[in-house]
């Protein structure tokens, strides 16, 4: 038997459920996805798992920029991650998975 998995957009919340310049965590299946809304209104999605502490907390980090790149700093030990790539800018050996995210009307959707 062959099983195929088709990735689909999953509705997460309304755009206004997200505070400007902050993140929130969504449960998509059994996966924790940190969704972020930047000051400018851009959306990004990363895994919520902080690879340094092993705790699911990245959605609670502070957003910002480093050399113009949008970032989130882990609230646990403050390592900074590039929101566009998931790469840790303080330790290139570490990164977190990124997910596709889009705005559909006023709904935020992610694909995992």
């Amino acid at each position: 038997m062959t099983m195929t998995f088709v990735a689909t957009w999953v509705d997460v919340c309304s755009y206004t459920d997200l505070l400007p310049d902050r993140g929130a965590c969504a449960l998509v299946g059994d996966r924790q996805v940190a969704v972020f809304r930047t000051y400018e209104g851009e959306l990004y999605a990363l895994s919520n798992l902080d690879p340094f502490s092993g705790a699911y907390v990245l959605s609670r980090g502070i957003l910002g920029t480093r050399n113009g790149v949008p970032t989130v700093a882990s609230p646990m030990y403050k390592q900074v991650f590039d929101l566009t790539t998931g790469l840790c800018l303080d330790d290139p050996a570490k990164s977190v998975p990124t997910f596709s995210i889009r705005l559909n009307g006023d709904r935020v959707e992610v694909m995992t």
Partner: protein
Amino acid sequence: MVYGLVGPCFTMAEVVVDHLLNGDSSAAFEGADLSTKLKLMGVDVASFGDPFADGADNALGVTYTDPVAGVYKKLVVSDDARTLLGGVLVGDAESYSTLRAYVGGQLPGAPEQMLFGGTEAAGGDLPGATVICSCNNVTAEKIRCDIAEHELRDVPAVKGCTRAGSSCGSCVPLVKKILDAELAAAGIEVSKAICEHFEYSRAELFDIVRVRGITAFSRLIAEHGTGRGCDICKPAVASILASLGNGHVLKGEQAALQDTNDQFLANMQKNGTYSVVPRIPGGEITPDKLIVIGEVARDFGLYTKITGGQRIDLFGARVEQLPQIWKRLVDAGFESGHAYGKSLRTVKSCVGSTWCRYGVQDSVGMAINLELRYRGLRAPHKLKSAVSGCARECAEAQSKDFGIIATEKGWNLYLSGNGGMRPRHADLFATDLTDEQLITYIDRFLMFYIRTADRLQRTSVWMESLEGGLDYLREVIVDDRLGICAELDAAMARHVETYSDEWNDTLKDPELLRRFVSFVNAPETPDPSISFEVEREQIKPVLVAGSSLEVISK
């Protein structure tokens, strides 16, 4: 041979590129330094140089084994014990970057010294040929030249220019030492800019915000900074805005500036849960209130511990439980203890003249008075205080940011003490003060500190950095040499007048309460990654996922 490291990979790529660009290139890959530091199943391991060279005749192996702590270390040295050839570290790889830098070179001390004491990163005196970054093959000489040539002033700039420290990062402490040594030698003052977004120190930002009446971070960064901020400048500005009295710390734009502790008005612990500390002014509490804390802890299954500041810390709360816990506490007459904030924590006290045979003043009464006066006051760092009822000093006031010791005639005020990593006894600032004098001096001390200290600078370090030290502080606070006492007094009066309990206010605000969920799309669902086991009849966190399960390499 297949390498699993990034260093050889980069070197091979360089050889390939050389051949592609230059047909008659003679570049060849001739092996690589295999030094590396890894974390395997939560255990640090590192190897450098040739760790197996001790099989040879002219080499000696020095080993240390500690099966209790799970530590194994081996250094391989030349037969005269002067030259380091290689080594292995298991269980404790702290000294990796320092040791690796000495491979092939002369050890500064005996091998056993390097095994035990060699954790301090070597200074700027390493020989120029020493390879500092083995991932990118960068020598000390190259780093020194680039610092001078390209006027590099901070570690990110050195990383960007030389690539040293930009792969595995294990040599960054060493790079920093070399940079510091070079800058010091060149007499270059290190920038006091708080971060890449502002060219100002915290004290300068405070004045900009205060004088220009700025109330929003977006305006501050648009007019006086660049970019969108970061986890350094945002909480610093949040603290400045709060010190100047801009309402609830979670309202409006301020919400985006707060570190996670302030964001959830609780202290994040290692598994992502939070701890809760209700205020117990002066450490005085009625049996009924004690029972409430016990009932809340029992009903929510929280771990309880008595703090050093005479309060009770309740651990293991999930975000969505925080409002429920605080509803119970607020209903019973408790308020936020601000354990999560860079703000006044607690004013500890001994039992004082009311009960104690030796007490000469009511230390509990004064402690409560002070704690209620300064509660909620945001500062560059946390503030601790204590009041002792007599010279026996049972409240340990001399280790506090402001400590008070009762005398027959009044109060002695001690300033800028500190426990923590670098303990400092507080300095005796003034003696035999009346209640009013005492409060006036503390008001001015705190407000002057809040205005002028650096980010995350405790009062102890601040005092040591003040030119003129204690005498200067007396001139400012007692003699009003700067003519700012009226302003400082007014600022504190405004704080006292506008204080409002953050948790009580949060519970009344449905907009704020909506943020206290583990999942935005499943507000009722608790975070399934959080789990506990039982130890000594209480919960303790279990980390189910994360770094201990992953092999982390460069």
